């Protein structure tokens, strides 16, 4: 358990810069989806990637800080229930940390499945449980509405975290030196 919650200087810096990228993508880089007026948030792909490389603390804070600052800049004030849900999603993504062989330069089928299961669990808990729950508790939104919104968010964020996160991790793995790649002649 301890390996997940170590906070080094690198974790802090990765959190800061990760949140900056998260914010940037959240604002500008949306992939338009086939359903009109909706889009895939590429930001969650990046959150999943950073969480896998730097752990759950970094992942959770990236989601929370990035989403809160983004809301503050775009809308004037953060929408706390969804900001917290973003943090929860990032935190859960972080359990892929050191569970895959990405640091050893390998990200193959088994690791891809592992990463995606964790990512889907994270999105489901965040958008089907935390976000609607807090919406009802804090903002007293209508129940049907918040669950419908949550479902859309869960599906689209799971797709963008799955597609983009997986691609990033494959790309990242190919830059790492493989274990045992040096042979004695």
């Amino acid at each position, binding site marked *: 358990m301890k390996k997940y919650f170590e*906070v*080094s*200087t*690198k974790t*802090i*810096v*990765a*959190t*800061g*810069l*990760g*949140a*900056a*990228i998260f*914010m*940037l*993508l959240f604002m*500008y*880089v949306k*992939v*338009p*989806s*086939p359903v009109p007026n909706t889009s*895939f948030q*590429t930001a969650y*792909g*990046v959150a999943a*990637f950073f969480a896998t490389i730097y752990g759950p603390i970094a992942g959770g*804070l990236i989601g929370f*800080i*990035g989403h809160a*600052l983004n809301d*503050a*800049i*775009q*809308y*004037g*004030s*953060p929408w*706390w229930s969804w900001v917290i849900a973003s943090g929860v999603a990032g935190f859960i993504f972080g359990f892929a940390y050191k569970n895959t062989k990405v640091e050893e330069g390998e990200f193959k089928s088994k690791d891809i499945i592992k990463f995606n299961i964790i990512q889907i669990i994270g999105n489901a808990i965040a958008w089907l449980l935390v976000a609607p729950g807090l919406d009802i508790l*804090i*903002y*007293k*939104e*209508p*129940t*049907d*509405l918040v669950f*419908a*919104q949550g479902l859309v968010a869960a599906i689209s964020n799971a797709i963008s975290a799955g*597609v*983009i996160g997986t*691609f*990033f991790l494959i*790309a*990242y793995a190919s*830059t790492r030196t493989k274990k045992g790649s040096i042979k004695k002649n």
Partner: protein
Amino acid sequence: MSNKLFSYNILDTPIHRLSGLTKLIGFLLLTFAVMFSYDIRVILAITLFSFYVLKMAQIKYSQIRIMVIYVAVFILINMVLTYLFSPEEGVKIYGTRHELVRIFGRYTITLEQILYQVTKALKYVSVIPLGIIFLLTTNPSEFASSLNRVGVNYKAAYAVSLTLRYFPDIQREYIDISLAQQARGLDLSHKAKLVDRFKNALVIIIPLIFSTMDRIESISNAMDLRGFGKYKTRTWYNSKKLAKEDFIAILISFLIFLLSIFVSIFINKSRFYNPFI
């Protein structure tokens, strides 16, 4: 893309003179007051108060135009969706039914629904000036120290200040990469196929991420060399001492917060104000 992140400018108004800590506490207290209460009278009072403070801080409309448009669109969509999903929410909350017009099927317009939706819209409107005031009058470097002083762990506060410090750099880099790729014929609009859109977004983000990871490496080494994180607490270069005005401002925000809770508990006996009984 060209809109600046924080058009923080140094002016000499009573709001600018307050310390960042005061503004953060005030912002949190007032937004929680609005978040908690569903009493239209309380919310209206806080809205008027926050617009007054906005004027006091001499913030111009041109500085916040984009934000206002975003919020207006957001509120409009939220209102329509709320009505489509539960046209009876007001009736459910207030327990009475004053029907005005029947449109079709279950879609009727009731006084209760109007009150519920107007209150909700006003709730969004009232917090916007608060956020704007906080963002535009607080020195970004002071923000981290304020966070630390309200009890956030200094490492997390430092992460926030790193985010604010590096956002413009990353934005600039993103624009460079994006323009370079577009010059090579990359299509980012929805004319491209869905799979291609994902691929094209990746082509821009991947170089951005790898250059950022190099940057993470060098920044964290630099911070380690300077002994970051050695002690349990730290001091901040950019923190102001609290003056008399700060205590007055905190007191005012705290009183408003208490008032909102007080009205809910003792006068309305719930979070909603019910004029229908």
